[in-house]
């Protein structure tokens, strides 16, 4: 009788029978396992060859059991010092003892079976790991989709005010969110929040909290009452050990008056002519316990004041040495760097400078910036309901103007758009378009100058993916190339080169260019569905 047993792991419970042939001494032998702590286990591993157990002297319960079941020879299947299984042989049908040739044959068989079993086991383990990775990836895509769907598609537009927002998910997708709520009488509700935990659970809580905030905002005029209402409702809905930090501000866009309440979120910083104001209002995070009070604070915006709301993905971003970006650094940057121009861009760039060029983002990064651009008198009585074309920025980065760096840009763009579920065809087209555009920016726009970077921003809009590539060639006319004609090129009548712009145009649904302030920007738009 031959009984082949396979051991997947070192635990005896994992032993299992995979094959039985020849005349069984008894079916019970199939169930005999060789525990790792049994001396017979060690003996078999050490021998690594057929063992006649009749005369073997070992204090082994397993050995005794095998003898009782009529087993005469045990052939260990050993791979890389591990007992993978064993062949159990009873007496020969001819009642003759096993010959040297028999043992040699069985030994050879075992030596071939053991590695095959090991390979099969590895393949199975890899398949299980691959399925697990796929499941996690799908979950992350679902979480990202939920967040992307619920974040505002448009930025509010108010005369005398400028509003900007930035959201970039971490690879594991946290629970950051922000929202703008159109209230009556020219008031604008602004929320920013962060759900503890990551992935689908955080995304679902974020979606729930956002809906509750909107509903409560329609019932209450005071932000403290809004947060208290949401908190009381959320306590019963939120999973254990989860909570939400959230800041809610109501801005009267006519008077410039703002009232905030804060449920444990990062404090807002307001840059004024006299320095940075930290607007402190206390309150417990949402979802922990009912009947919590939420303190309110008010502030009156003056012309030029800028309010910066952040998530902890910014303040808790670490540099390579492990130092956090921190509140004091953020406050300092708000004071020194955001007076003019692209506030969001300058802050994100500063955080990226802190973390280093190749650092993986640890947590979602969210920024909301509200600036008063006109006096109360100018803005008074004017309330526009129009909206600008909004977009959610997935990533923004820059590459040095060195040959080949378009590959870095391609990789980063691909990483950023993974959550959007583009088809393979669209993804490949986008890769080519981005590569060619960045290559043009490096070569023509920045003329390979080491001191000039190429800036790349990847965003989603209602239409689809928008990739903007900016170089410093805005004041310099870019040489127009002839439309590529393959026949002319093959005949030597046209340079073999000059395919770049042609390829870009063919790869994307829309190609926009703009110049200004010495910069040249190419915007690549790939529609979400259908594509080219």
């Amino acid at each position: 009788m031959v009984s082949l047993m396979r051991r997947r792991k070192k635990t005896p419970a994992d032993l299992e029978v995979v094959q039985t042939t020849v005349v069984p001494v008894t079916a019970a032998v199939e169930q005999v396992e060789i525990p790792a702590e049994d001396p017979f286990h060690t003996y078999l591993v050490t021998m690594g060859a057929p063992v006649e157990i009749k005369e073997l002297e070992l204090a082994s319960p397993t050995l005794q059991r095998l003898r009782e079941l009529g087993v005469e020879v045990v052939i260990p299947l050993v791979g890389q010092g591990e007992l993978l299984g064993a062949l159990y042989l009873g007496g020969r049908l001819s009642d003759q003892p096993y010959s040297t040739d028999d043992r040699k044959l069985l030994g050879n068989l075992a030596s071939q079976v053991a590695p095959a079993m090991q390979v099969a086991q590895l393949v199975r383990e890899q398949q299980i790991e691959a399925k697990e990775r796929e499941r996690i990836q799908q979950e992350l895509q679902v979480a990202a989709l939920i967040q992307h769907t619920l974040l505002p598609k448009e930025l509010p537009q108010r005369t005398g005010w400028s509003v900007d927002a930035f959201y970039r998910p971490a690879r594991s997708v946290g629970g950051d969110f922000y929202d703008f709520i159109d209230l009556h009488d020219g008031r604008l509700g602004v929320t920013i929040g962060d759900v503890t935990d990551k992935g689908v659970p955080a995304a679902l809580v974020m979606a729930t909290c956002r809906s509750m905030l909107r509903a409560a905002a329609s019932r209450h005029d005071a932000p403290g009452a809004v947060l208290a209402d949401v908190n009381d409702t959320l306590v019963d809905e939120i999973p254990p050990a989860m909570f939400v930090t959230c800041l809610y501000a109501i801005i009267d866009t006519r008077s410039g008056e703002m009232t905030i309440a804060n449920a444990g979120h990062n404090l807002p910083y307001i840059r004024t002519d006299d320095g940075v104001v930290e607007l402190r209002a206390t309150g417990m995070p949402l979802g922990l316990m009912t009947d919590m009070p939420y303190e309110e604070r008010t502030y009156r915006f003056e012309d030029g004041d800028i309010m910066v709301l952040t998530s902890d993905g910014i303040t808790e971003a670490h540099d390579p040495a492990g130092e956090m970006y921190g509140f004091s650094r953020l406050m300092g940057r708000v004071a020194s760097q955001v007076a003019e121009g692209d506030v969001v861009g300058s802050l994100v760039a500063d955080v990226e400078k802190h973390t280093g060029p190749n650092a993986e983002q640890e947590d979602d990064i969210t920024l909301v910036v509200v600036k008063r651009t006109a006096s109360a008198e100018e803005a008074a009585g004017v309330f526009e309901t129009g909206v600008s074309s909004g977009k959610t920025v997935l990533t923004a980065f820059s590459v040095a103007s060195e040959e080949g760096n378009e590959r870095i840009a391609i990789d980063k763009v691909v990483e950023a758009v993974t959550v959007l579920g583009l088809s393979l065809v669209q993804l490949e087209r986008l890769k080519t378009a981005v590569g060619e555009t960045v290559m043009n920016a490096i070569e023509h726009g920045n003329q390979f100058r080491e001191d000039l970077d190429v800036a790349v921003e990847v965003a989603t809009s209602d239409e689809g993916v928008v990739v903007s590539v900016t170089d410093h060639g805005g004041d310099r006319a870019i040489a127009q190339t002839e439309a590529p004609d393959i026949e002319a090129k093959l005949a030597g009548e046209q340079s073999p080169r000059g395919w770049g712009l042609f390829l870009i145009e063919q790869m994307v649904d829309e190609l926009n260019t703009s110049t200004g302030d010495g910069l040249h920007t190419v915007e690549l738009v790939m529609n979400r569905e259908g594509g080219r």
Partner: protein
Amino acid sequence: MPGTEFGATVDKDGVDTVIHMHGDVNRSAQDGLATASIEAKGGPGRLLFDFVDVDYINSTGIALIVGVLAQARASGREVGAFGLTDHYRELFQITRLSDFMTIYDNQNAATAAGK
């Protein structure tokens, strides 16, 4: 330079001459491809480009292919290619390179077509 370094070998032992390429077909491929095309000139039969181990081709790479194609056509030599991904097949169609070189799925198909 980021990416995969280009390399090429020329196989002249068969019915056709095959330039086996690997790595990125971009500006970095200029010297390697030029050397390979010179070596391929004296080879038998058609000139076949093997793209099996190529996963990146940019506009400069296309220009390099156009240059080698132009030389081969000038000497009356038929040119083909195999191993292109679906995306690069599309690029070869858009640029009309595929009007002047036959695109095969793989080397077996290319070889069979030459018999």
